[in-house]
């Protein structure tokens, strides 16, 4: 994968939000990443880790505080106005809540057609045909275009959101918790649909979620964030935070579950206004060596093995098995 050119490359991206009295929430702190064409990258972490903010920075829904985001070699953070708008076509987003992300007063047909109109792409019958085609692609009845969002279930609404995202034939789709508001029996439908669409339209996904078992299922690579930093990029995890996260997920099998050992993390995530020194995870890490190096040096995110990067001084000491 290393010989290919990334579709998207983020370099030292920083996002701070003002928090009053001169303080700031350090939501994303010097994050660099690459996403290659056709792959699915999972982005996981607990609430407040900055994963959604990072997704919105990548799709240019939020401006960066500093850093660069290259898409197809062009630095999006340097573009303004019409030029940026044209690039946005290729970067679409699917949101978590299929209720609040669709305008209740627009018909489904108008919702899906809106991006086409924004870019003046199709008109009249050609537009209607495209809308019906999109509805069919996402597994909905093409003649539902005159209905309103409230007439649909959560899973169907999420399909409408996906149809809207596909309308402009994007290259990269950032899906922010696309299934976590859905019922268990519906989640699999949407995951399968997203996998089918990826094959059919050569899509690249950044799949943001807190559920590691879903992310593991759909992703080629998984990035783990903690307090605004990417701490690991893996196929086989070694970072103590990732290990703890994985061990905390209950497996739906009482026999397996009763034999698992949960790595209990002490306390809760520290405030991103005032993150801990050195490695941000050192206050909760079961293998931290304190104070040196973990509390006074920041471990860089570096290659540890093929397809494996981790920001940890001691990740080699963590056993490989889940």
């Amino acid at each position, binding site marked *: 994968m290393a010989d290919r050119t990334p579709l998207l490359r983020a370099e030292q991206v920083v996002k701070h939000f003002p928090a009053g009295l001169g303080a700031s929430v350090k939501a994303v702190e010097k994050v660099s990443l690459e996403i290659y064409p056709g792959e699915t990258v999972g982005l996981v972490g*607990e*609430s407040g880790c900055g994963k959604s903010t990072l997704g919105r920075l990548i799709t240019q829904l939020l401006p960066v505080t500093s850093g660069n985001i290259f898409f197809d070699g062009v630095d999006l953070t340097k573009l303004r106005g019409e030029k940026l708008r044209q690039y946005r076509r290729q970067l679409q987003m699917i949101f978590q809540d299929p209720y609040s992300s669709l305008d209740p007063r627009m018909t489904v047909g108008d919702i899906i057609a809106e991006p086409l109109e924004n870019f003046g792409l199709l008109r009249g019958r050609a537009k209607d045909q495209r809308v019906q085609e999109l509805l069919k692609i996402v597994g909905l009845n093409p003649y539902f275009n005159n209905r309103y969002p409230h007439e649909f*279930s959560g*899973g*169907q609404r999420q399909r409408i959101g996906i149809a809207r995202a596909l309308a402009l034939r994007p290259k990269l789709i950032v899906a922010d918790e696309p299934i976590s508001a859905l*019922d*268990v*029996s*519906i*989640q*699999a*439908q949407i*995951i*399968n649909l997203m*996998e089918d669409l990826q094959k059919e339209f050569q899509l690249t996904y950044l799949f943001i979620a*807190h*559920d*590691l*078992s*879903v992310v*593991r*299922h*759909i992703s080629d690579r998984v990035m783990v964030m903690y307090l605004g930093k990417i701490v690991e990029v893996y196929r086989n995890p070694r970072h103590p935070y990732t290990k*703890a*996260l*994985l*061990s*905390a*997920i*209950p*497996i*739906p*099998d*009482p*026999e*397996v*579950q009763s034999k698992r050992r*949960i790595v*209990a*993390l002490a306390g*809760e995530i520290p405030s991103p206004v005032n993150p801990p020194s050195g490695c941000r995870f050192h206050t909760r890490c079961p293998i931290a060596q304190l104070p040196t190096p973990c509390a006074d040096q920041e471990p860089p995110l570096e290659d540890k093995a093929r397809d494996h990067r981790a920001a940890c001084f001691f990740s080699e000491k963590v056993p490989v098995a*889940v």
Partner: protein
Amino acid sequence: MTQPALQVKDLKTQFFTDDGVVQAVDGVSFDLHPGETLGIVGESGCGKSVTALSILRLVQEPGRIVDGQILFKGDDIVTMSDEEVREIRGKDIAMIFQDPLSSLNPVLTVGFQIEEAIEAHGKVPGKMALSRAVALLKQVRIPAAESRVHDYPHQFSGGMRQRAMIAMGLANSPSILIADEPTTALDVTVQAQILELLRDLNRDLKTAIILITHNMGVVASLCTRVLVMYAGRIVEQGPVEQIFKDPQHPYTWSLLQSIPRLDSDRHDRLLSIEGFPPDLIRPPRGCRFHPRCQFKIDRCLHDDPPLLNVGPDQDAACWVTMRRALASNGERRG
């Protein structure tokens, strides 16, 4: 066999809406044994939360319990006076909810609210109530409980708020704790802590727990017995090991096949249950799952299957059952 701590018999709870009568809980029966951990799983709208609310008579208008019995210590909660239900609520049977932030009063300290729960069931001198509140916070492992007892809910993190809710639930040492999606709003690492806490409380205090959840993994890690609900009914019930290893109802089976698991192969196509749960104003005839069931036979379309014994302590409401469904599939393939 010991006397059940709680017996629910043919419970029917309905909501009288402008669009029609929603049959939210339609003939649910089960026993809860002392000290047991019972899971009730299902998707949104399956009636699991309404079942829980019915037990404490907390169903709000336009909802009403229309039929059935809820027997606690020989008395029927359904026919009790409001006064009598209030005596049980919070004292013998306590309940904690999904969202601890909206269940706590933001303008009162956590300690005050726990003291309120203690004093609701008997006069306790102020100092004793406070020290009991501190002890409860310690029991749910809130660090520095002596000072945190004076904090307001917003000063607590999500996980700590849920612990505070559990402390409040335990205030009068109830024999039954009903936890409605207690970890759904929490991160997985915090969820693991709360589940461990509930497990310890069940072991140490012998409190029976009814855990309402949509998460099969949560059931697997805490419960010994499970009821699977679909469209207002119990479709399968039995010991957790049995249900997870050998589910007999197609709904349970499909649900387990549709969840990506940490210990399964990646990128395997997930089995998905087509369609979506039915409208409970006009539920389908016959088996309520039949429109989504891939194993249905003609009988399922018009004949409503009762819960039948399908294994040791295991009941399923299905005319086909997975044992037969998979065997005949094998024949066809073979």
